[in-house]
């Protein structure tokens, strides 16, 4: 047992899952098999009881006919007697055939059908007889059947004896005394046989009835056991999968942590060297300076990408921490704007600020707020042409305020970033917050972007119970709106914190 457990634990994950699934499948097949088996036996039992009904009905009719014959000597009654007695006689052929080691199914079928059984019941009746004929209640039932057949044989003989007597005279009134006595004795025998047979017939049905009741009970118990095993296996499976997921999750976050650290270190070195080079290499040609700033820009871009990936993977692991602190959102917004100073100057962009006041203190997680505003501004700066306008607005919005096509439903802080850039095509509107989404017209312009920024922003906003949406007109520009409660963000414990970009 211990060895088996060890063997199981040594299997690779896939092997373990396959093994559990296989066990699942086997129990399932067993369950279905047991169900089918039980139903089959039930149905066969029913067919046997039905057959017995026909058997005893024929026997009763034969009794009535032979007694009438003995009374009237009317040949038609004797013919009917013969006809009725065939039914029990013919089913005896089936029984005898089924007793043989190499039985002939055709004979069994023919004789059972002749006995009034439905042809479709034959296979399950055969199975029941062959499999259980030697045990328990079925054995008892077959014994009774056997006894019945013997009695029927006697019954038939008594019938022929009556016939012999009847043949010897023209009418009952011609019988001599001895013949009458013989006939009466035969009638008496027939009556006795009938009584005995009736008893046997009742017993036969009772035993089979008892058998099917026991079977029903066992079947129910069996089903319950199988169902319990199945649910147990299922529970095991779920627990196992949960453990795997937890481990994978841990490994993933560990990997992301290591990868980000390892990637960041050489990037930092590159950046520091370029910085030093810029300062030291005064004699560098214009082209050299240009190349240097390209290196600088690209390493910056790469670093941001590393952070984006890091943050996205943390978001996807779920439950990142929110650590709100009283902070001045206007000040933070200005600081983030400062990060884009060079690009804004290079593109000669016109920045319009529309702030509630000079400072606005709210309890927010600085990192998260920075990430949101940074990504929105970064998009705006990237996707606008030279001399275009970008508007950054942070205001309190009262309930009922109309913002473009929306009405604010409760008081909140409303942040918006508008650009006069390319705009988002209508057919792409639903995909904007998808991971790796990049607008087709933005891609055409070959502007850089990972398609992670808005996905990240949306994930953050969802977590802090805010809302984000946008209004866009093609070739006129886009405005992104973000709202969050005036009381700020709620503190949330989480295993990981998101990191804002190191500028």
């Amino acid at each position, binding site marked *: 047992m211990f060895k088996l457990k060890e063997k199981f634990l040594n299997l690779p994950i896939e092997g373990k899952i396959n093994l559990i699934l296989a066990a699942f499948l086997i129990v399932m097949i067993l369950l279905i098999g047991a169900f089918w088996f039980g139903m089959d036996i039930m149905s066969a039992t029913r067919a046997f009881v039905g057959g017995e009904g026909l058997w005893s009905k024929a026997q009763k009719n034969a009794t009535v006919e032979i007694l009438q014959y003995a009374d009237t000597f009317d040949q038609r009654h004797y013919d009917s007697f013969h006809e009725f007695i065939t039914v029990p006689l013919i089913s005896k052929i089936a029984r005898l055939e089924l007793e043989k080691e190499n039985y002939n199914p055709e004979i069994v079928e023919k004789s059972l059908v002749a006995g009034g059984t439905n042809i479709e019941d034959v296979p399950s009746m055969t199975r029941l007889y062959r499999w259980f004929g030697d045990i328990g209640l079925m054995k008892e039932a077959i014994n009774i059947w056997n006894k019945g057949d013997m009695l029927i044989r006697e019954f038939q003989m008594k019938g022929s004896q009556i016939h012999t007597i009847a043949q010897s005279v023209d009418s009952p009134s011609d019988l001599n005394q001895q013949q009458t006595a013989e006939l009466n004795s035969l009638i008496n025998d027939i009556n006795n046989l009938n009584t005995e047979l009736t008893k046997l017939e009742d017993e036969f049905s009772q035993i089979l009835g008892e058998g099917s009741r026991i079977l029903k009970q066992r079947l129910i118990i069996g089903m319950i056991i199988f169902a319990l095993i199945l649910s147990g296996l299922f529970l095991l499976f779920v627990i196992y999968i949960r453990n795997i997921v937890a481990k994978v999750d841990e490994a993933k976050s560990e990997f992301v942590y290591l990868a980000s650290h390892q990637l960041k270190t050489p990037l930092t070195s590159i950046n*520091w060297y370029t910085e*030093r080079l810029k300062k030291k290499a005064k004699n560098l040609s214009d082209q050299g300076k240009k190349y240097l700033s390209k290196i600088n820009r690209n390493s910056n871009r790469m670093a941001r990408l590393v952070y984006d990936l890091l943050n996205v993977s943390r978001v996807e692991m779920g439950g990142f921490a929110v650590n709100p602190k009283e902070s001045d959102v206007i000040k933070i917004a200005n600081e983030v704007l400062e990060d884009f100073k060079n690009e804004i100057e290079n593109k000669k962009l016109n920045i319009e600020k529309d702030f509630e006041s000079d400072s606005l203190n709210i309890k927010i997680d600085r990192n998260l707020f920075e990430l949101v505003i940074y990504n929105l501004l970064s998009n705006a700066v990237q996707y606008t042409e030279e001399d275009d306008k970008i508007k950054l607005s942070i205001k309190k919005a009262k309930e009922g305020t109309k913002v473009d096509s929306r009405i604010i439903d409760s008081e909140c802080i409303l942040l918006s970033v508008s650009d006069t850039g390319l705009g988002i095509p209508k057919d792409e509107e639903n995909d904007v917050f998808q991971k790796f989404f990049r607008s087709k017209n933005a891609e055409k312009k070959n502007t850089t972007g990972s398609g992670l920024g808005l996905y990240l922003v949306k994930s953050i906003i969802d977590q802090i119970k805010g809302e984000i949406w946008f209004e866009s007109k093609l070739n006129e520009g886009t405005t992104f709106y973000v709202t969050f409660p005036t009381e700020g963000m709620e503190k949330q414990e989480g295993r990981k*914190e998101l*990191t804002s970009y*190191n*500028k």
Partner: protein
Amino acid sequence: MEENTQTKKILIVEDENDQRDILSDEFKDQGFEVLIAENGKKGLNSAKEQRPDVILLDIVMPVMDGISMMSKLRESSTWGKKVPIILLTNLTSDSDRVIKAVSENDPAYYLVKSDWNLENVVDKVHECLQ
């Protein structure tokens, strides 16, 4: 002679060769006397012997990490309690939390969150020497 009294001593504890080199070059250019160490253990010894005016300390290092070195130095002497220490960090959230725990109520503690730019590091050093 007067110039000599103004020469400041900086100890750079960093396991990454390139980064240690470039920080060393930068501060030499700025007129510092530069001491270097490649892990926390060596850094701790060097600090105790040489008593630098400021310590630049990386966090993730082999043998002894920056956080351990910092707490050991703070316990070592009155000088050790007061010397300004600047932690450099990639600021992955785990180290962030450790830093918070260590730095509470430490007046001589500085953190360069954005070690991404060399300029930020240099600025921070000057700021804590004033």
